[in-house]
């Protein structure tokens, strides 16, 4: 699809869903309320609950979608995503350590900081483990190792937790959700996500050249060390900050580039911006769905995404298994 069609289409859907996200929920807030803010108490629902939630969905979705698209482009692997590659897990471990040691009491910035450090360490280990001549499965295996290590670290923190409430708090947060977030979380995540996305967008030409493999890209004058630094910094900041404020929401970065790839002619650089918008759309849509599902307790967004994303992962794996082996 031509950019002249794709961008208006994606933006249109995004705006539509953003509007819907302000209306939809256990309490349906119709459009008419927006015109009479001072008179209607439901205005509080929009402004205090749903607006920050929708903003966060856009931010976090864009961070995850763009991170996934960049990681897939770099690894030439359609299964790459911050969750699958363990970056979300190491970010979560960082955030859990900050929570566990009460660092969040010192400053609210400690949690995103710790999550970003975790994410940066995760990407760093990933790029080092897969190293030169990285095979397609090499990244997935490196990601599996990271997921195991980070999972063990989180379990350790849980088993050492001083009281059951701390456990409940950590577990609750880990599952990934946009519920009950305020503009405080938006403020904490925004600068890092914007900066991270900027770094990731700068990898575009290098990711295009990587279509020809690492040798091909290097022969075209692409600096692999610069590309790796941009990628690590970008994913570390964007995905790290996203995990810090919402917990682990997996598969957005996996599913979104897949849906968009055929629309942009598979060129990895052309996939970046649409994947950011697409990630925001997927996250907004999923968040609206979990709000509308009639359940005693709202389903966690991270859990819902895993329920949809894991089968998707399996389908891609089965379809591409000959190419990936």
């Amino acid at each position, binding site marked *: 699809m031509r950019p002249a069609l794709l961008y208006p289409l994606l933006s249109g859907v995004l705006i539509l869903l953003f509007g819907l996200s302000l209306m939809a929920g256990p309490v349906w807030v119709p459009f008419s309320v927006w015109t009479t803010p001072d008179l209607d108490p439901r205005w509080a629902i929009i402004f205090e609950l749903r607006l920050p939630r929708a903003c966060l969905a856009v931010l976090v979705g864009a961070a995850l979608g763009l991170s996934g698209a960049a990681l897939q482009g770099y690894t*030439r692997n359609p299964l790459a995503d911050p969750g699958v590659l363990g970056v979300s897990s190491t970010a979560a471990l960082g955030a859990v350590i900050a929570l566990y040691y009460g660092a969040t009491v010192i400053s609210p910035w400690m949690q995103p900081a710790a999550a970003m450090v975790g994410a940066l360490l995760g990407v760093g280990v990933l790029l080092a483990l897969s190293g030169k001549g990285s095979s397609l499965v090499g990244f997935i295996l490196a990601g599996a190792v990271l997921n195991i290590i980070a999972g063990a670290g989180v379990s350790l923190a849980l088993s050492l937790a001083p009281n059951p409430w701390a456990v409940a708090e950590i577990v609750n947060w880990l599952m990934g959700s946009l519920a009950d977030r305020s503009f405080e979380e938006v403020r904490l995540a925004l600068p890092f996500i914007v900066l991270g996305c900027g770094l990731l967008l700068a990898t575009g030409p290098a990711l295009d050249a990587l279509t*020809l493999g690492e040798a091909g890209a290097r022969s075209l*004058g692409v600096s692999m060390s610069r590309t790796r630094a941009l990628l690590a910094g970008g994913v570390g900041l964007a995905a790290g900050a996203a995990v810090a404020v919402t917990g682990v929401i997996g598969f957005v970065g996996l599913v979104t580039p897949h849906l968009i790839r055929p629309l942009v002619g598979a*060129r990895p650089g052309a996939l970046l911006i649409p994947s950011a918008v697409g990630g925001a759309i997927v996250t907004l849509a999923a968040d609206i769905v979990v709000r509308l599902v009639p359940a005693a307790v709202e389903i966690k967004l991270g859990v819902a995404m895993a329920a949809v994303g894991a089968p998707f992962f399996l389908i891609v794996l089965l379809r591409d298994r000959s190419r990936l082996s």
Partner: protein
Amino acid sequence: MSGFSAAGLSGSDLHVDLGGRRILGGVSLNLSPGQVTVIVGPNGAGKSTLASTLAGLLKPTSGLATLDGRPLSAFPPRERARRLAVLPQTPEIAWPVTVRTLVGLGRTPFTGATGLSAADHAAVDRAMQTTGVTAFADRLVTTLSGGERARVLIARALAGEPEWLVADEPLTGLDPAHQLDAAALFRSLADRGLGVVLTLHDLTLALRLADRVVVLSQGAVLADGPPAAALTPDVLRRAFGVEAVIETTAAGPLVDVRGRL
């Protein structure tokens, strides 16, 4: 340093160690533009390593690879890439892009974040015409045959309109007809002034195509010169360990390998 002139693509006393093993042990040569230089040698002789070193992708452990007298390692990567294009031995095409998009990647050393300019598109069109792939410019690379794919990859290398083309075993995996097509293409590129450096396994093709043949054996140059002078039965015996006769046929010289020593 004596022994090599400033112009052209040169290696001077190139030593390359990889993984603790010596791959090249003192290779010196000076290649001229407008010629097809073919590097031959048995498996493990260091052909690919020499090609990568001359392409500036591999830094020699000692010695110097230069382009027009300037060390390749001193070139900014983009500038080097503009002047010298490389076809890797096992070209990878990771995504199902169109032929035109793939060939356009050859313009990477010229483009910024804004994508291809009109001049870039014109160069892409010229490269596709030269290699005869214009007819399937809008097809996906995943749907191409091996011969079509090889030509598209050559078009990609030419899209940057380089002065030098270094191709590592570009004819491997092609049927005889497509091998001849590709060889004729390399010939015509050299006739137009491009410096073409190829590694090949087919000795007969090397004899017929090359202006100059470099025979590598165990990381050193065993013979270097015009094809008939470089590829003699004696050299083939020492380099490959085979008994061979060079016959003259109506179609040109033919290397007839009779057996192992």
